[in-house]
């Protein structure tokens, strides 16, 4: 019994690392630009297809293709901010919500047209490897993904706290008006925020590829998970999103273990609804950091 629980917790933490990359992106965009990016999951999908094609066409390992998917998605992020999101800032909810929602629909369905609905997988030498730590079984591919996800989250934290651009970003998140008065160019900061958030989604895609199939709708489950984690971890709070993502991963994994294979999502949604009912400002409560 204890072993089963331990195994479920480990599985949950490992996939939770990927959820963290997606939800940190969502919370960063929400914190800085004040937009909820409904299309975040589709950028994970794009990251996955980039790694898939580099692996099948050129034999590049998905972990190496991280160095392609992240910059490509950074550029896409800047373009999305500059040509799309910038135009709806300051308008009411409808355009702000439905612009990224339309983008999500567009990317998903053009993915369907271009790549068909087939599942694409990449098999690497470490895809089937696993470590045995006592009675617990740790798949190597997921472990690598988790470690790199934590490293990237750590790098983001350092960036936000130690560089001028990072500080400008946090300043813009806290009070846009004052930040602009202090000489911060909001559009530049927003472009970088979008770029970083999408690069993290791209990284999540590449890290997933050795053990997870790519298909056009793959982003949906990740983005829903990220939304829940972002609410749970207090909107706009990067560390909150990280901790909440790991919790979501564990909750989902325990749900799959003890309730049934298809009930992971029920557990996650129930967590969301319970959070809304009892702690609508998130577990951290109050202020965004």
């Amino acid at each position, binding site marked *: 019994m204890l072993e089963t629980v331990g195994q479920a917790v480990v599985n949950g933490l490992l996939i939770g690392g990927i959820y963290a990359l997606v939800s940190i992106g969502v919370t960063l965009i929400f914190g800085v630009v004040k937009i909820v990016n409904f299309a975040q999951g589709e950028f994970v999908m794009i990251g996955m297809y980039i790694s898939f094609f580099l692996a099948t066409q050129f034999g590049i390992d998905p972990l190496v293709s991280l160095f392609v998917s992240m910059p490509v998605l950074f550029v896409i992020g800047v373009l999305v901010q500059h040509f799309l999101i910038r135009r709806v800032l300051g308008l009411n909810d409808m355009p702000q919500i439905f612009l990224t929602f339309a983008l999500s629909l567009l990317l998903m369905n053009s993915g369907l*047209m271009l790549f068909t609905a087939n599942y694409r997988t990449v098999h690497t030498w470490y895809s089937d490897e696993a470590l045995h730590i006592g009675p617990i079984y740790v798949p190597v591919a997921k472990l690598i993904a988790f470690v790199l996800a934590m490293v990237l989250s750590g790098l983001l934290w350092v960036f936000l706290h130690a560089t001028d651009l990072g500080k400008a970003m946090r300043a813009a998140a806290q009070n846009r008006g004052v930040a602009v008065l202090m000489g911060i160019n909001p559009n530049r900061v927003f472009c970088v925020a979008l770029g970083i958030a999408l690069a993290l989604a791209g990284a999540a895609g590449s890290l997933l590829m050795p053990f997870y199939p790519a298909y056009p709708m793959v982003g949906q489950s990740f983005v829903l998970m990220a939304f829940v984690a972002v609410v749970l971890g207090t909107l706009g709070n990067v560390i909150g999103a990280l901790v909440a993502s790991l919790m979501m991963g564990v909750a989902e994994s325990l749900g799959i273990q003890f309730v049934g294979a298809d009930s992971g999502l029920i557990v996650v949604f129930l967590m969301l609804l319970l959070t809304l009912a009892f702690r609508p400002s998130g577990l951290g409560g109050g202020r965004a950091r």
Partner: protein
Amino acid sequence: MRGLSKWTLLSLAMLAAVLIALPLVVTSSFAIDIFIRVLLFSFIGVAWNLMGGYAKQLSLGHAAYFGLGAYTSTILQIDFGISPWIGMVAGGVVAMLASLPIGALCFRLRGPYFTIATIATAQVLMLIFLKFRDLAWGAEGTTIPNLGNAPLMMQFDAKAAYYYIALGLLTLGLVITYRIERSWMGYYLVAIGEDEDAAEAVGVNAPRIKRNIYLLSAFLTALAGTFYTQYIYFIDPNTAFSFNVSVEAALVSIVGGIGTLWGPVIGTVLLEATSALLQSWLGSSLGGVQLTVYSLILMAVILWRPTGLIGVMTEAYQRVAQRIARRNLARA
């Protein structure tokens, strides 16, 4: 209908005559099928628009009520032999009851997070119906027993009958919207949609108004669910709680003109016409084309004409009217 001008009444009467005569003239069952889809999705759009359009509570979870309406009437019909006509109203009541706790949770959030919470509620309901097989047939769903021509059980040989039911539903939705638009409730809704804090500051009881409009919107959406199930003779969780229903309800309203009486109807006509054209050009071979085109239309509307097609038409009308006025002035 007091207060309508002679010309408005005349054009409405002509529109009604055309719509009533349509199935007598057009007999192709493919065409009738499209007309029924247009009427049905216009009606769902109208139901969504009451809450999403006027009060700007942008739900993407109306499939919850569509599905509850569909399942209530089907369970009543198959397990208890109760006519779907009664089941339809019962489904509406069930949807209203469900909207109370769902609203209590979701209205704690505003803006995008309200939208996400509504997505979650519809998904939870779908998963419940998928998972708990004892509740209602699980993932396989069930077919509605075909009784031949049984008007009392909402089953007809002629497709035209379904057309008239859908037309009746849409008319109901439009009349209700028209009445609300011109009542205190309508002004409250618009005030909440414009700025909820300001509305509350001047004494609008926003939580109550939002709850009431959500009750009505849920009720109407559930009627559409019952009708759709009777029309396709089949129900399963994936069609009844389909995310596409939630999306299309919002999409037709936004594309046509959010928060306007005729917006959802115009939006549905455009989108369904596009979809029918695409289907006849490409066949059903290329998956994803329809929603790709829908999403491009939606983006174009958001970026260039947030008031939707109604906005475009009003602008064009005003430009023509101004030109005529200027010409008359010059002549005088």
